[in-house]
């Protein structure tokens, strides 16, 4: 490497190598949560709604793990919580899809709009 470029390369590396602030992860998580929420409200297919809920859960996990890494006094408890969240989410997927299948069987549809017996 030509020595004249050394400072620039070093600068570039410094920029590239600087630590990501905690806010970065948090904002990404927030955006992911928002997208998941939007999708859960928008889509007509019940399975897709499920997927969006999973997105939201993952955003939360990301936040938790982010805290677990950055906050000194936590002793990594955030990661532990994240594991438990993953477990619960998996359980939820199982039961939820069972329900979707049951509904599909009785009504022949997975369109959320058509399941509105509680309408006035």
């Amino acid at each position, binding site marked *: 490497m030509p020595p004249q470029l050394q400072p620039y390369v070093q600068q570039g590396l410094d920029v590239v190598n600087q630590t990501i602030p905690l806010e970065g992860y948090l904002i990404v998580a927030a955006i992911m949560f928002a997208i998941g929420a939007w999708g*859960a*409200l928008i889509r007509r297919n019940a399975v897709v709604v499920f997927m969006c809920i999973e997105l939201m859960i993952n955003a939360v996990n990301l936040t938790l793990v982010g805290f677990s890494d950055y906050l000194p006094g936590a002793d990594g408890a955030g990661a532990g919580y994240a594991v438990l969240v993953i477990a619960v989410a998996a359980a939820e997927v199982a039961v939820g899809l069972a329900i979707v299948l049951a509904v599909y069987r009785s009504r022949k549809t997975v369109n959320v709009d058509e399941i509105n*017996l509680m309408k*006035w």
Partner: protein
Amino acid sequence: MTSVGQQLIIAAIPVLPALVFVVLALFGRYLGESAQYVAIFGVATSLVFSAFSLYFVIRAQTPIDFAVNWIDLGPGGSFPMGIYVDGLAAVMLVVVCFVSLMIQLYSGAFMQDDSRFAWYYAVLNLFTASMLGLVVAPSFIELYVFWELVGLCSYLLIGHWFEKPSAAKAAQKAFIVTRIGDAALFVGIIMFWREAGTTSFQGITEAAQAGFIGGSLFTTAVILVFVGAIGKSAQFPLHVWLPDAMEGPTPVSALIHAATMVAAGVYLVARTYDIFVQSPAAMLVVAYIGGFTALMAATMALTKKDIKRVVAYSTVSQLGYMMLALGIGSYTAGIFHLYNHAFFKALLFLGAGSIIYAINSYNLTEMGGLRRRMPITFWTMVVAGLSLAGIFPLSGFWSKDAILAATYEQHFYVLYGMVLLTVFLTAFYIFRAIFMAFTGEPRSEGARNATESPGIMTGPMVLLALLSVVSGWVGIPALFGAPEGGFFERIVQPSALANETLALEGHEFSIALAIVSTIVALLGVGLAYLLYVREPERATSLARRFAPVYNFLDDGWYFDALYERVFVRPAMALGRATNVFDRRAIGGLVSGVGRGTGGIGERLRRLQTGGAQNYALFILLSVLVIGVIVGAQYTVLVIGLIALITLVTVAVGARL
């Protein structure tokens, strides 16, 4: 000082009929026709006790006076309930009890098949109790309590046959017209109370004497009290209720509208005489209203075809006499006439009732020839008529003559003329009625088949006829051999204070005036004889010739029409308007709340779209709103933004 025994006896006088009322009101249904015996027992006992009280008062020469504390709010706020019985009150007690007893005996037959027999007796006794309470009241407040009760009982009794719309209307009319008087009376009472700090008659008299109550204020208050008397005693201009009150059963008319309730007004003036005499202006008002009423009512009685209405107008007229007497200072003469009038007027009503009982009609043109068929009724009516007309030596003569003489001798010549004319008219109308009813040939089927009424009805009538002759003899002046001023004057006379204030000169009995009045009365009888026995067609032809006058008199000087136009119609219109306002505006407001809630509910219900995503949208939105509100720095801006977003979201979301 009165002993406890005496106090109890006198307190029992109004209490006994009140107890009878309670008993009959509660158990009347089970007693049925035997309710009359309970009632008669009560009144008879009260009568005996009243006689006792009269005896006590005469013997002791001082009034009986005791009271208990009812309301005591300190100085100026003390309202005791008490009993004050002097000569005047004792006489009234006896009169009221006696007449009430006669009426209750008579009613046993007259009201025999009535469906509300026991209730009739109950209210009759409540009335008696109230009247007795009114008589013994020593203060305005106590008087007013019983005054109102008496008015209530009058309403209930006039409207006893309330299935008849005319009776219901008459009862209302009586109550409302007397209410006007009552309101004035109450204002007067308040004025007195405010100035004197007490409502007892004695207290107010003393305060007035001592000058605590200013001149024009005092006169106004006294006149207001008199207006109350005008209402109850059916004087001009509040006389319109009494003729219509004849819709009630005849015994009721006899008791209430002849002898007792209407006398309450006169009694009020007499009882508060010490106050009245201190206002010469008020006295004049009393006298002239009395005199005018006497003449006016007598003219109205001339043309009536309903026998009860003739007697009703007669009552108004005679009450005018009494007011006149009180107004010019002849206290004793006025009360004397009240006492006599009670008997013969009650008898006239009972006689009319007897006729109605026999032929089932009160129309004079359907009567005739009853003289042979109902002899007892005939002769007692004649006695009563003669007494009313004031023919010597019946009772009516002595009291009427006393009034006439006093009027003349105190130089009230205009009033004397009016009253003399009234004497003529009185004799005429009462004998017109008697001749039309009893002489000639029967003019209807009912009259042809008439028989005399049962003993329990004619008994009281005979008794009252006897009294109509002799009751006046206690007041025969010295000229005829009785002690100076007669017995009556010894019992009933104004207080020393009143005598001082009035400073009247005593007068000897004047034969000349007596002869004049008797001749005038006989002229009246003669004219009636001429027109209704000798040449009946003259009467009808005269009526036709002077038709406008006839109609004017027959329609009560068009007073009813006048009042109807000026007061009743606007009041009814106001009532209707208020009713509409109440129903539409206030009712609308109330049901509007209901409908509004329903409407909001109806709209909010659209939020229940049944779609889970919809609900999720709302949940997220709410979380957002709450979070922002809790954490926001620029509150107003943010809240506005949130509101906007919320509205849009809800609007869109709810249309899913």
